[in-house]
């Protein structure tokens, strides 16, 4: 083992080592480097802390909203109790408030919208993700789908009222329902259009992420395209597709403006999917400004609280289902 020191380098034949260079310039350089790395560490810390604060702020915000809703709905909870949830009359004149018609209307219109939208969103996702990931037509389609999400909801409301409602009325008169056009069915149609992009774009990115070796193996075994999609792509992406659908459901539950314009806004319990109804978000938007009695205002806020809780519960159930999918 022969060791020699030369030009500040201790060289061993098998392993070069470096010693600290002690010339003034070199020291200055090292100090600079140390300062810089100290600054880098500090920046790192600040950045990390900022991220943490951001996260905390979100948590505080959600809890704050929940707390505000609870506190503000206390007068209504005190005077109406739990039967608020299933009582069927909403009568501001006599201070009787029951959320059931609106709860029903919200769930009915949202799930119906989901049912209508699923075939479309999954088809778009498969088409864009599997069949034609590149090219001008898929690009155009992708942008169009994204544009659907970007259109303000009041425009959907107008369009629904002007175009969709007369079509639905026509349909209703053919199938022998009272032809009024507006109602749960019309609002579900509008909602379905509005929520397609959420499930479609998430589904598309999930499908493009399916490892190609899996698909190639399936093709290698002689599978057709449909078989590959059915037995490889869909099983691999089902949790992602489901998450997208859940996201669209969340949007449908809270949608206000477009729904209120086409749902018919009545506090009666809808007798069929063609009957007019109302949703919680739409009632709040309609009646909040003129709620001139404390209990009335509080009952409306409690409606917000119920909507909040419904959304949370549906999300939790969705998470559970996604977990089960992924753990299989």
């Amino acid at each position, binding site marked *: 083992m022969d060791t020699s020191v030369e030009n500040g380098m201790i060289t061993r034949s098998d392993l070069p080592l470096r010693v600290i260079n002690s010339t003034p310039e070199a020291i200055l350089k090292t100090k600079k480097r140390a300062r810089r790395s100290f600054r880098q560490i500090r920046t790192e810390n600040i950045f990390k802390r*900022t991220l943490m604060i951001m996260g905390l702020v979100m948590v505080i915000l959600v809890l704050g909203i929940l707390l505000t809703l609870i506190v503000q709905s206390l007068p209504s909870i005190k005077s109406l109790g739990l039967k608020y949830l299933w009582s069927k009359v909403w009568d501001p*004149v006599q201070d009787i408030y029951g959320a059931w018609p609106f709860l029903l209307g919200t769930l009915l219109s949202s799930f119906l919208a989901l049912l209508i939208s699923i075939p479309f969103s999954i088809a778009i996702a498969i088409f864009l993700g599997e069949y034609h990931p590149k090219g001008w037509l898929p690009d155009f389609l992708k942008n169009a789908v994204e544009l659907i999400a970007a259109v303000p909801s009041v425009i959907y409301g107008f369009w629904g009222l002007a175009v969709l409602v007369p079509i639905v009325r026509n349909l209703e008169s053919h199938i022998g329902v009272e032809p009024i056009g*507006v109602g749960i069915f019309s609002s579900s149609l509008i909602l379905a259009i509005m929520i397609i992009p959420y499930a479609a774009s998430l589904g598309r990115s999930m499908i493009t992420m399916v490892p190609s070796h899996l698909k190639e193996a399936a093709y290698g075994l002689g599978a057709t395209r449909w078989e590959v999609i059915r037995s490889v792509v869909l099983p691999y992406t089902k949790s992602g597709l489901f998450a997208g659908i859940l996201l669209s459901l969340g949007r449908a539950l809270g949608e206000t403006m477009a729904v209120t314009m086409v749902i018919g806004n*009545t506090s009666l319990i809808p007798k069929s999917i063609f009957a007019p109804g109302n949703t919680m978000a739409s009632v709040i938007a309609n009646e909040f400004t003129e709620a001139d009695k404390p209990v009335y205002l509080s009952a409306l806020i409690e409606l917000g609280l119920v909507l909040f809780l419904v959304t949370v519960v549906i999300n939790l159930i969705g998470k559970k289902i996604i977990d089960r999918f992924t753990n299989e």
Partner: protein
Amino acid sequence: MKLSSFKIKRSLVAGVFFAVVSVSLVSCGGGGGSTSGSDSTASGNSDDNTLIGAGSSFDNPLFSKQFSEYNKTNGLKVNYQSVGSGAGISQLTNKTVDFGASDAPMNGKQDSALTGPAIHIPITAGAVVLSYNLPEVKDTLLLTPDVLAGIFLGTITKWNDAKIAAINKGVKLPATGIVIAHRSDGSGTSNVFTTYLAKVSTDWNSKVGKGSSVNWPVGLGGKGNEGVAGLVKQTPGAIGYIELAYAVQNSMPYAKVQNKAGNYITPSIASVTAAANIQIPADSKVSLTNTDAADGYPISSFSWVLIYKEQKYNNRSLDRATKLLKLISWMIHDGQQFSSALTYAPLSPAAVTTGDAILKSATYDGKPILQ
């Protein structure tokens, strides 16, 4: 290396900015969430040349015109927020405005929420008309209070019902179902209409009652006058109630309604003013619905400006109070000339006299403001 540290810095700046924004949002939300956020308004405002009002959206077009005209001659600015009658009253209650405007007089509960008594000054009058969509019917539809209540209660469901046919003799009414359109948002228009129905029908009074939002037994809800009008225009066989001004400006057909004296009255500026030409109580809190006037349209109503009777509150100056009263006084006198062009009914002489007397009762520190 340089580039990435620059990036980090930039994202830091953005992060801090968002943190500040969201923290301020949290602190706003934590303030109890009451609707009265603004405290830099009516109370102790240094700028006494700007008055603040809020309330009825029905009054808004007229007020805009009046205030801009008044500004030209007197240089006084008025900032009016058309937020709805109920919201106007609650803003007056919270003392964030100099005056409120409402299509319905304050009820007992609202009165008791105030720290001091408020006075109502009638400012204009409007009407609620029944617009319908019956393409086959060329003549103007006639309605009696009884039939109207029956339609909106859901007991009369077909247009060719014997009760409707009996008052519209010679008119060929279709056999289609009646589709009712009502307001889905709380509104003064609904209040006027339901107050009328509650007066003329005991059934309506016991089953539904009156208010800016009621539990409608049948029908579809539309948001705002335009929402109801849209439903009526679109749905064959529909009938709905909208403001006279809106119906006139959009040339929609509307029905003649039988008044207390038994005459069928076409809603118009003249018949609304006529409806208001009755004995008005000293506090002016009178509903014009189902008026006694023989040529008055029965579904009419005053709209009121509401102010505190004692104008010295929250460090308000005498100057500000005087300006407010002078403005309102101008509105019920000279300001009335702008009514007709905007399809509002000018105040009847009786209403102006009552308004004058009420304005004189307003005080500052116990002393009358207007002589």
